[in-house]
């Protein structure tokens, strides 16, 4: 038959595997706190792409040596080489598991232990990793194209939020001058994170027409480098330099402020995360697959179970506040990459049944895991959806006002209630205490995911108060960054204001901003712009003011017009 099970994959499958493995971890980790951004980093990326292309050609020539490891090195040495690569696989697993444990609770599901989630991910990815190269190739072939298209589409959609001045401030700012020394540092950093490519020869052995695999592999690496380069332009353009310095995972809020035409979805940052998580799962699966293959090839037995287990357990490691993330970077830069090169140079020179039981155990494991995680969901009717949030200063410290919508008006199902205004006012020494008060006194879960406007009392505009408030908003992961900001001298009156038909002050103010033709529209200020300015110099941009004039709620866009 044409599809003989010869455990070999096509060039297309190889290309798509590379496309799936690298982008998600790169996008999440490369740009941490402003790393790998700026002119030097962009030049470094381009140079690294060129170097990688040559390195790949060399690796392809080395592939036959990997196929005869035992014969070339002897029984003892081959085991040491196996341990060297397996250590990389285990540490990479630990790093990715740790990443999943941090990123998912932060941006997808709050309230569930990250370790549980990473355990589930590791367990799911370890299934069937011993079942040959063709299986992995096929997973990549059916999902690689969709993944790449999704990543590119979402990058294009988020490009609409970018601003040239934000990008230029990163490129032209202090410390951003072109420097050979910094560029070389970035090249090496880039090569270190790309060091997974060192496992490529183990895979190349299973590729059809191995000799001509150069083209798809180089093309795949150039595509990944292209994505990284695109992100190096996009991230500064959307966030600005100083905001990036403050963000641990800047790609997470990238789509927080983007809109999809047609109002089908209010936000699609969750979809973006879905793509990234799929990429991370595939990376984990690939590590387990290659790890198992390396263990078998280097006479260390099967690695099906212990590699995932060891990786996951190691992801807990922490000493003096430094976790696996810190040590992993150090390990790549100072141990793995140099030794890998030594080993490859050495090779270069030389070159010249029990189903039922399993199913029951696996099902039991997944069931218990699922039940162990299932405490974070909150039903929609048990949530409170404030559309406007007001912040001010009170005798106790701070005050927060939540304006709830009139459900009947908003859903268009019945006549409006007699008193459509429902405002919850809570005060406390700080915002955390206010949240605690809320949790003590309110039966419903506070869902800030649908916030439309934030109104600041004039008293909140002082340097200290605005800092405290913006930091509080930052840690509220569901607040979108396309929320409009207003200020007022009459916070109480604004929140007590009764509109004729509108369901809340939030919807009313958003309507004033958006329900106008392009010529009529005023320049509103979004939370993203406020963050940008705040991270620049600690100040705030001009924020439109709002006040009650008789029965009308009016907005002054001031000089920002």
């Amino acid at each position, binding site marked *: *038959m*044409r*599809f*003989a*099970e010869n455990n070999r994959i*096509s*060039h*297309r499958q190889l290309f798509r595997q590379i496309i799936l493995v690298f982008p998600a971890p790169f996008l999440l980790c490369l740009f941490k706190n402003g790393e790998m951004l700026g002119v030097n980093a962009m030049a470094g990326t381009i140079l690294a792409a060129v170097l990688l292309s040559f390195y790949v050609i060399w690796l392809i020539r080395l592939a036959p040596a990997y196929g005869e490891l035992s014969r070339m090195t002897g029984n003892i040495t081959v085991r040491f080489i196996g341990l060297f690569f397996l250590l990389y696989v285990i540490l990479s697993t630990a790093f990715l598991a740790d990443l999943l444990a941090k990123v*998912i609770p932060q941006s*997808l*599901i709050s309230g569930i232990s990250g370790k549980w*989630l990473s355990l*589930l991910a590791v367990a*799911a990815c370890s*299934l*069937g990793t011993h*079942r040959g190269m*063709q*299986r992995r*190739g*096929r*997973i990549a*072939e*059916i999902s690689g194209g969709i993944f790449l298209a999704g990543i590119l589409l979402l990058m294009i959609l988020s490009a609409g939020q970018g601003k040239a001045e934000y990008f230029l401030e990163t490129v032209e700012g202090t410390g951003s001058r072109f420097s050979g020394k910094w560029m070389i540092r970035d090249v090496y950093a880039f090569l270190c994170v790309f060091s997974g490519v060192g496992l490529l020869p183990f895979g190349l052995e299973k590729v059809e027409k191995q000799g001509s695999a150069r083209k798809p592999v180089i093309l795949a690496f150039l595509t990944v480098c292209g994505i990284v380069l695109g992100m190096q332009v996009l991230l500064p353009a959307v966030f600005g330099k100083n905001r990036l310095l403050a963000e641990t995972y800047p790609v997470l809020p990238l789509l927080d402020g983007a809109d999809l035409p047609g*109002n089908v*979805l*209010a936000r*699609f*940052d*969750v979809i973006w*995360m*879905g793509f990234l*998580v799929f990429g991370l*799962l*595939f990376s984990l*699966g690939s590590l387990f697959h290659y790890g198992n293959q390396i263990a078998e090839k280097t006479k260390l037995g099967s690695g099906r179970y212990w590699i995932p287990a060891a990786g996951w357990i190691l992801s807990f490691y922490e000493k003096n506040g430094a976790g696996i993330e810190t040590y992993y970077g150090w390990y790549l830069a100072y141990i793995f990459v140099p030794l890998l090169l030594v080993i490859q140079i050495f090779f270069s020179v030389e070159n010249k049944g029990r*189903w039922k039981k399993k*199913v029951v155990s696996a099902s039991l494991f997944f069931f218990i895991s*699922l*039940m162990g*995680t*299932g405490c*974070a*969901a909150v*039903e*929609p*009717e048990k*949530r409170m*959806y404030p*559309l406007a949030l007001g912040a001010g200063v009170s005798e106790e410290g701070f005050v927060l006002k939540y304006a709830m*919508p009139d*459900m009947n008006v*908003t*859903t268009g*199902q019945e006549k409006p209630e007699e008193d459509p205004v429902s405002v919850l006012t809570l005060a406390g020494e700080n915002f955390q205490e206010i949240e605690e008060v809320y949790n003590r006194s309110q039966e419903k879960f506070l*869902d800030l995911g*649908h916030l*439309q406007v934030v109104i600041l009392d004039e008293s909140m505009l002082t340097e200290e108060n605005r800092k405290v408030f913006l930091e509080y908003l930052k840690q509220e992961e*569901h607040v*979108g960054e396309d929320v409009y900001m207003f200020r007022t001298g009459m916070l109480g009156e604004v929140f007590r204001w009764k509109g004729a038909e509108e369901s809340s002050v939030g919807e009313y103010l958003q309507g004033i901003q958006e329900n106008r033709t392009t010529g009529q529209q005023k320049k509103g200020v979004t939370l993203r712009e406020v963050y940008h300015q705040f991270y620049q110099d600690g100040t705030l941009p001009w924020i439109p003011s709002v006040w009650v004039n008789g029965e009308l709620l009016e907005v002054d866009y001031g000089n920002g017009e």
Partner: protein
Amino acid sequence: MPLASLFLLEKDGETVEEKKISVSLHENESYIRKRCENCDDILIRPMRLGEGHKVDCLMVYIEVAVSNMMLDDSAIGKMINHFWEIPEEKIREFIRRNSLGIADVEELFSMEEVFGAVLSGNAVFFMDGYDRAMKISSKGYPGLDVSEAETEKVLRGSKEGFCDSVKTNAALVRKRIRDTRLKVEQQSIGVRSNTVVQLLYVEDLVHEELLTAVKERLESFTVDGILDSGMLEQLTEEAWYSPFPQFQTTERPDRAAQELLNGKAVLLCDNSPVALVIPGAFNSFMESSEDWYNRFEMTSFLRVLRYLAMAVATLLPGLYLAVIRFHTQILPANLILSFAQAREGVPFSSVVELVFLELSFELIREAGVRIPGALGNAIGIVGGLIIGQAAVEANLVSPVVVIIVALTALGSLAIPNEEFASAFRLLKYGFLFLGGYLGIFGIVLGLYLTAAHLAGLLSFGVPYLVPFVEKNGQAETGGRILRQPFRKRKFRPLYARDDQKRRLRTKPWRQKGKGL
């Protein structure tokens, strides 16, 4: 040479010369037996006629298409009966003088004419020492007594469906592929049931390895009885634990014939109206026979719709739960508020609510299948409308969930193959729990596991995800989600042998663009 005859007479790229009927019956018989090797549905009956039984004769016909009764009752049948009594030397003269006067008899001069007649459902009579054959017309293949395919209804295309008789079913396929290269191999399976099983394939299209694998699997078990093709399917499939069927099933002879022309093999089992098509692949389960008959634009649109239906049938409940329980920010504020208001007063969690309604729908569906005709429709109305409405009014479920379950059900019904759709019906519950307890992360995790499972599945050595995982340059023409125009589908899919790739040859019309 006309285009049509090029195909009829072409074998292995060479044109076969038309063979005349020989005077020697032995020579004729050898030739026919060689051409009809492994065609167990074509009967070749030698006989000796004349006084003293000295004249060798031969009757060739398709068993189901020509009945013995018909042979006896026809004028030529009566004439043949008369041959028992007359001397040998007078038989040939008798035939020459009398046979051409009989309305349902026609003289044939070449073997191609003979096979044309036999494969059209007629009997052909040969006699030693006579260089012609006689076609005895019959009513042809079974037709009106064959019932319509219940589970694969189409708007355009044949209304015939397979029935319980394996021989009739083979004849229905033979009716569509009138070629001796269509082979029908018959065997009995089941120590006590002795069920007749027929393996159909087109000799020069199918891969040898596929036939070997099928025969090997059929011999790999001993069982007391095979009562339906479903039992055969479960005994011969590789990944028995998978919810995805690895054999494509069909009740339509035209679908089976089309798959044979694609290079696949077909298994027919006595007492079963369902044929098994080997190998099965993900994409072929999403196709309908109509896809070949309708225009490519509409077919492409419908195929995209079916894939969307598949996604809806599998993911919608899970996504709904993920969004309303974890990621409310994804929906516009008005929509999530509507959802919240609709759920006010519902005593169960949204997961329980959805599982409850999904199971209720499964119950209605199961009850509807068991109950005959009109009562089945009544069950649908009672279940769907009355119970649904009552459950909403009693605040047992929210109206949104009713819509979700209805859309999910519509999605699963839009998948053309019932066995394939049922795999997604099962997966739906997995995604429902994953989405309900882990949000989008759970959905992504489920998608990864499903993709990994499908990537590992094989059907007789062919990856299940074909043609999405085809190798470079081996793409099936128009065989993915979108269908190409028929005139562009010049090549067979990868199931066929490499030397028989070309399915269609076209040449430009001379009168193109000119009016009458």
